[in-house]
């Protein structure tokens, strides 16, 4: 009897292992679900005022969403406002959101792709980052859902360029961001500047005066190499020009370029002259940004997603302005050539909920763009609409800069494939640490990448 009971207990323990499965068995089904075809596009309907209302989202559905809009992130208010609007519009749609910090998210989302555990809707970066997922067949094509927005002019076709692969659209741009040179105008005023330096000579003069006064011109978070690229890439673009840099980043042109060597030399010259906070090499982006917001340095060059934080008088107690990095070589580059573009993207995974997720994702992206522009966390990738009086002066300044832009180069680590981007970032880190010069940078990248 005892043995029978013991055996029963053991069998119970063994079979209980089968219960250690994912909570939602629908996750497993998603991996085997056939890809949605264009014939599955749901019937659309509109309200009396012409606003599009999705029929499929009238049904009860639970959608999983992953993103990086953590508390304190500049995009969080836009995400919250967008989700609130959609909750009111589609009360039967339940969103289960998981938020992860930026760097950790890059690891998490790739692990999810490999394990076939992508959520229904996920934040991603356009360019090669999303391209790898599309190549793996894990991303749902959004052509059908996006078409009506492109046709009626709400979404410029050009904004879909970075999330278009083999002629098909796989992402919804949420914002457009460029690298901006944010400046503490109170500090600049103390050295006689009432505007952001517009030429190379002005920049050098301004920085020399700041250094002489014991003020650090720039702060750069060396611990996160992408922050170093926010300085190096504008220098490269303003030295060799947007077209040349685009060819190197996206079209496989060789890195063996004298202008690239000169750009690296320029950055290192500025480091040697004391233009950069020497402690920056050990700082994270949050720490570097905090230094700027505390008024400890004059400039902070980073993405325009920071406009929301810098426009908030509770965060920043001084006069902030934004401009573009000055031209370094006017024979090859000119003002109006910017680093950036529509990179922040919402995508949909292939699965049983793909149709509903696609409808939701497009409206979600549209609303994030709208509120992000109002709240200053990004430029509009969609045609701005509604009452725009809330847009901050800082964001309006960036909009004016973009209106005059004549060339964009997508951020290097988004434009290039994962492997090449990481090789590039490794060499950028060596440049910032003065381990290699321009020659070493170029030779290394030519050897590794071409």
């Amino acid at each position, binding site marked *: 009897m005892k043995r029978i009971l013991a055996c029963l207990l*053991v069998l119970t323990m063994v079979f209980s292992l089968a219960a250690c499965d994912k909570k939602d068995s629908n996750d497993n089904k998603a991996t085997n679900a056939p890809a949605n075809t264009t014939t599955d596009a749901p019937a659309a309907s509109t309200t009396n005022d012409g606003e599009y209302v999705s029929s499929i989202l009238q049904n009860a559905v639970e959608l999983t969403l992953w993103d990086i809009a953590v508390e304190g992130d500049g995009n969080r208010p836009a995400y919250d406002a967008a989700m609130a609007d959609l909750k009111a519009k589609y009360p039967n749609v339940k969103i289960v959101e998981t938020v992860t910090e930026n760097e950790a998210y890059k*690891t998490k989302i790739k692990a999810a792709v490999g394990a076939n555990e992508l959520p229904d809707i996920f934040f991603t970066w356009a360019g090669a980052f999303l391209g790898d997922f599309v190549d793996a067949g894990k991303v749902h094509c959004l052509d059908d859902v996006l078409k009506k927005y492109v046709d009626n002019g709400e979404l410029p076709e050009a904004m879909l360029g970075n999330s278009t692969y083999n002629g098909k659209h796989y992402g919804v741009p949420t914002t457009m961001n460029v690298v901006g040179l944010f400046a503490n105008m109170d500090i600049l005023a103390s050295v006689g500047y009432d505007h952001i330096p517009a030429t190379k000579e002005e920049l050098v003069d301004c920085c020399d005066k700041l250094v002489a006064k014991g003020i650090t011109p720039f702060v750069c978070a060396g611990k996160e190499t992408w922050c170093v690229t926010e300085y190096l890439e504008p220098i490269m673009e303003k030295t060799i020009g947007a077209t040349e840099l685009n060819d190197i980043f996206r079209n496989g042109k060789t890195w063996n370029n004298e202008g690239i060597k000169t750009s690296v030399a320029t950055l290192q010259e500025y480091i040697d002259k004391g233009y950069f906070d020497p402690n920056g090499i050990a700082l994270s982006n949050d720490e570097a940004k905090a230094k700027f917001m505390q008024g400890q340095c004059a400039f902070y060059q980073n993405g325009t997603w920071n406009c929301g934080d810098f426009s908030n008088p509770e965060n920043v107690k001084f006069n902030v302005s934004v401009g573009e990095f000055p031209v370094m070589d006017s024979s090859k580059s000119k003002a109006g050539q910017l680093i950036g573009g529509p990179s922040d993207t919402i995508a949909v995974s292939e699965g049983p909920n793909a149709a509903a997720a696609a409808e939701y994702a497009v409206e979600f992206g549209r609303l994030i763009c709208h509120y992000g522009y109002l709240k200053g966390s990004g430029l509009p990738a969609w045609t701005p609409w509604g009452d725009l009086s809330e847009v901050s002066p800082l964001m309006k300044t960036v909009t004016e800069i973009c209106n005059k832009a004549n060339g964009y180069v997508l951020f290097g680590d988004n434009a290039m494939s994962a492997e090449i981007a990481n090789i590039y970032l490794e060499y950028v*880190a060596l440049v910032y640490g003065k381990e290699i010069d321009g020659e070493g940078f170029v030779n290394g990248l030519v050897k590794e990448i071409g």
Partner: protein
Amino acid sequence: MIRSFPVTPFGGAGKTFSIDWEGIYMKRKSKSHSLAIFLFLLPALILFVGLLIAPIIMSLYYSFFDWNGLKALDPSEDFLGFGNYTILFGERIQFGKALINSLILAALSVFVQLPVSLALALALGKKIKGERVFLSIYFMPVLISTVVIGQLWLKIYNPEYGILNTFLRAIGVLEGDIRWLGEKNLALGAVFAPTLWQYVGYHMLLLYAGVKSVSPELREAAKLDGATDGQVNRFVVIPSIKPIIKVSVIFAVTGSLKSFDLIYVLTNGGPMKATEVPSIIMIRELFLKNKYGVGSAIAVLLILLCFFFAILIGAIFKERDIYGKK
């Protein structure tokens, strides 16, 4: 119990066959015991094989392929042989340098961390006042999340307002800022300090358990022979807890080879790869560069190194018999 039975086959002389009923009973009982043992071990075996052995075998398999982890693996197209292993020791990845960093951490763990843990265990094993309170205090860093400890030490090491630089400036040793995590020649030591600090309590607890298990009679006998406290520890307690010291050394070395989380939070392998360890490279190759083959190769090498050091340490600690042979 053996019973004999006379048996008379056709046309043959009578023969006697013996049946060992007791032996049959013991064999049947032994078989049913074996079955019970197997059934009780089965759940743990399934978990062990499923969560440990199977992933190791799969890692070994993937290490022979050039695979990005996103698309389905095509064995014919993606096979690389030992290519991933040769890439590791090339100029770009600098796996050898990372391995040396891990071995330095292992050496510091064995020759700095463990002696401190042993000293604490010996001190606390003497039934001092507040023994349990001290135990809890020293063990507390082990319980705290590594990410929290990393953030704490980031603040300690901050060049401008960090408590370390502030203290050094206050006592007049330092004038400017020391970038503990920003200087190549300082970052490695700066990163290892909290790593070693965090697990002192863990090894202390293991050794404390051993110290407590030493028979009091042995201590008393030594004291009666005139041994001091130090001599008691050296000639009685420490030899008695040698098996536990061996376990602690194995844990310290293998843990150092696999160290990742604290280094990731503090420096992520920087500045300029100065604090890179194999696990950091593995995560970067796997999740940032989508090189699952290379990452798997690193995982396999780490497993082999852990095995090697476990066997080596076991051999070093092997007891000699009365003839002096191991």
